[in-house]
């Protein structure tokens, strides 16, 4: 290892990497150990006239304007915003463990259980009573674990189907109402022109799978008493697996890694006739495929037979973190931030997020006609979808490992060495093993 006395220019970069890695592990361990002994910082006795400061790490663009509104209205509870850039959200867990974390942070809803089991998030149920109805059911279900509430839902990702009007017109297709129609459309399109695909299969893009899985009534996790349930291959998952396997076997999907230059080339050149994804996707499509302006439209996500449910891939939540001295005030601010009309309007219009709060759905920004989508009010479809997404999907620990395992297995599906059903069984087994190895109870 790095103990070898010879050092040369060639590999120093990689050696440094290992040393840094070891160092990171070492320091994180030290932090972890110290984290065990500290803690137990209870809520301070509330003194309404005392001026306090809450620190808040967030990543939504222009959210400082919302914070400013709060600060003006609450002179005694000052919120200090640290605007995160890029990926520095990943430093939040380390900061919390070190006792140097903020009072509040924006966290992916999917990561919440890992925050909780690692004692980084605080149950705020006592402080935000009767706020459940402020949010869409799917968004609320992502922060609720039994009786505990571990965050305030901020945004969500209801699914819709973006499709190329020119291609649909040319080949006589109509937006599919059900997944059966979708398969029929895909067959028709592929028969007419084998180089055009109705949709894509992007093995590493778990969100596309997740939203359809949620729509089918599936859930990767569940809670049963004092145990986790892992259900990566439950009936809902199997339903999607069967649908996707059929499409893939008939070569009706373009297999391509999403977000790559190759992907946007496929989109630009019209090889992908429709993209089913979350409410935040239209913005990215506009940025990356600007020259296709006016050629896209949006339709509701196709539904499964016998159901009207929409799809949902999840969003972020405001989480009150361990170590805060003011859990009550932090929870109150989080609740205000994500559900106050003025605040949410800013987050929607200038932060670009799709709100979890019902009041946010009334934001005028979401009613604007978009020339890129042929003058259509593109968000009306997503607004409707947000209210019909199932609230049955439960998040659980080990989510990041689950999705990276899923990407690895779906890669095998893409190369034809495995079926979707086998991939799900494999991820089910590895997730159960992962939870058990941490000592968690799994049923």
């Amino acid at each position, binding site marked *: 290892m790095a103990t070898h006395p010879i050092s040369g220019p060639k590999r120093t970069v990689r050696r440094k*990497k290992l040393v840094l890695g070891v160092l990171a*592990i070492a320091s*994180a361990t030290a932090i972890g*150990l110290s984290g065990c002994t500290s803690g137990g910082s209870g809520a301070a006795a509330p003194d309404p006239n005392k001026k306090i400061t809450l620190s808040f790490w967030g990543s939504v663009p222009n959210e400082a304007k919302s914070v400013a509104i709060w600060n003006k209205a609450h002179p005694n509870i000052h919120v200090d915003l640290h605007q995160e850039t890029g990926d520095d959200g990943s430093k939040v867990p380390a900061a919390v463990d070190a006792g140097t974390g903020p009072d509040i942070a924006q966290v992916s809803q999917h990561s919440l259980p890992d925050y909780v089991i690692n004692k980084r998030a605080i149950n705020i149920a006592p402080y935000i009573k009767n706020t459940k109805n402020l949010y869409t059911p799917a968004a609320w279900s992502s922060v609720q674990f039994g009786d505990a509430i571990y965050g305030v839902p901020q945004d969500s990702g209801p699914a819709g189907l973006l499709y190329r009007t020119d291609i649909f017109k040319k080949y006589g297709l109509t937006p599919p109402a059900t997944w059966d129609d979708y398969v029929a459309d895909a067959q028709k399109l592929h028969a007419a022109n084998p180089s055009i695909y109705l949709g894509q299969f992007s*093995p590493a893009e778990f969100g596309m799978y997740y939203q359809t899985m949620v729509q089918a009534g599936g859930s990767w996790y569940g809670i049963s008493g004092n145990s986790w349930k892992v259900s990566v291959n439950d009936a809902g998952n199997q339903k999607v697996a069967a649908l996707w396997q059929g499409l893939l076997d008939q070569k009706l999907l373009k297999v391509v890694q999403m977000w790559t230059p190759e992907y946007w080339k496929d989109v630009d050149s019209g090889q992908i006739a429709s993209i089913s994804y979350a409410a935040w996707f239209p913005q990215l499509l506009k940025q990356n495929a600007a020259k296709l302006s006016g050629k896209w439209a949006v339709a509701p996500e196709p539904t499964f037979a016998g159901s009207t449910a929409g799809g949902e891939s999840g969003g972020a939540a405001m989480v009150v973190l361990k170590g805060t001295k003011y859990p009550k005030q932090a929870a109150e601010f989080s609740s205000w931030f994500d559900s106050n009309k003025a605040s949410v309007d800013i987050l929607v219009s200038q932060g670009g997020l799709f709100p979890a709060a019902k009041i946010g759905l009334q934001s005028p920004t979401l009613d604007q006609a978009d020339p890129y989508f042929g003058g259509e009010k593109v968000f009306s479809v997503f607004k409707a979808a947000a209210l019909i997404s199932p609230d049955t999907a439960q998040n659980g620990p*080990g989510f990041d*490992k689950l999705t990276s395992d899923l990407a690895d297995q779906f890669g095998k599906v893409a190369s034809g060495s495995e079926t979707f059903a086998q991939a799900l069984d494999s991820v089910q087994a590895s997730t159960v093993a992962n939870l058990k190895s941490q*000592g968690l109870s799994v049923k």
Partner: protein
Amino acid sequence: MTQAVPGQPLRLADRSPARRRSGRGSGAAPWVFLAPFIVLFLMFLVAPIVVAIGTSLFKVQKSGLGFDTASKTVFVGIQNYATALADPAFIAGFGRVLLFGIVQVPVMLALALIFALLLDSARTKFKRVLRLGVFLPFAIPGVVAALLWGFLYQPGVSPIVEGLKSIGISVDFLSSGSVLWSIANVSTWSYTGVNMIILFSALQTVPRELFEAARIDGAGELRTAFSIKVPLIAPALLLTALFSVIGTLQLFNEPTILKNLTTNITTEYTPNMAVFATTQANGNLNLGSAMAIILGLVTFILSVVVSSVSNRRGRNA
């Protein structure tokens, strides 16, 4: 240092350890000069390794849902090592980088040797351009190099793939069978130059008289290269081999970047990527530490093997 006796040339024997011992001054001075190194070495190399070994022997034990119950850190001995060694993906990663090394290292060193010999040859023209051209890729950070090659590998945007397609040859640089060699190509492109420089420097230290003697004996350029130059720079060649073996085992940047382009690179594609995934994505520092220690040990053992081969060769020569 030893002192030369006036009028007498300094003999090699004067540098014997015994002489040096007798000539040393106070014992503190060397330590003062060594202190910065020793302190940093202990702080940033030895201590982290010790902590990593310590961490690898423990495990964070949760219970139930893990929500309300406190988690305990318990001593588990070598359990994490057993878990790591029983993980087929982790072991497969070692197999993969070894296969990679067996093919890529000889190819890269052969190229580096050829370039070094060409640079050293009196007959080669445009030496400066050649030297700069071969060395330049090393100046490009590994991540950037991987991004750059990623473009050239991707169907749809790659002029190479599209060009070959237009003449009827269909290639996929990112398929499950070819992607390892696509990574090897990036490594070779990046690191041939610096190996060439090391070998070229070694060639510069070979006394020129030997080449003259060889020429007088009737040896041509090729004969001189393979019978005189290559044997004389064998130690440098083995040194570059050692670095390359270490670098191969620690392969991380290139596959991590190319992973964004293809799922044929899995999360635990190389041992280093497995360590990263375990500690970062899954937050398991204990298991990750054990994996890092295993990787370190394997690298250390391979380094010892390579350098002992080198020493034996050196004695036999």
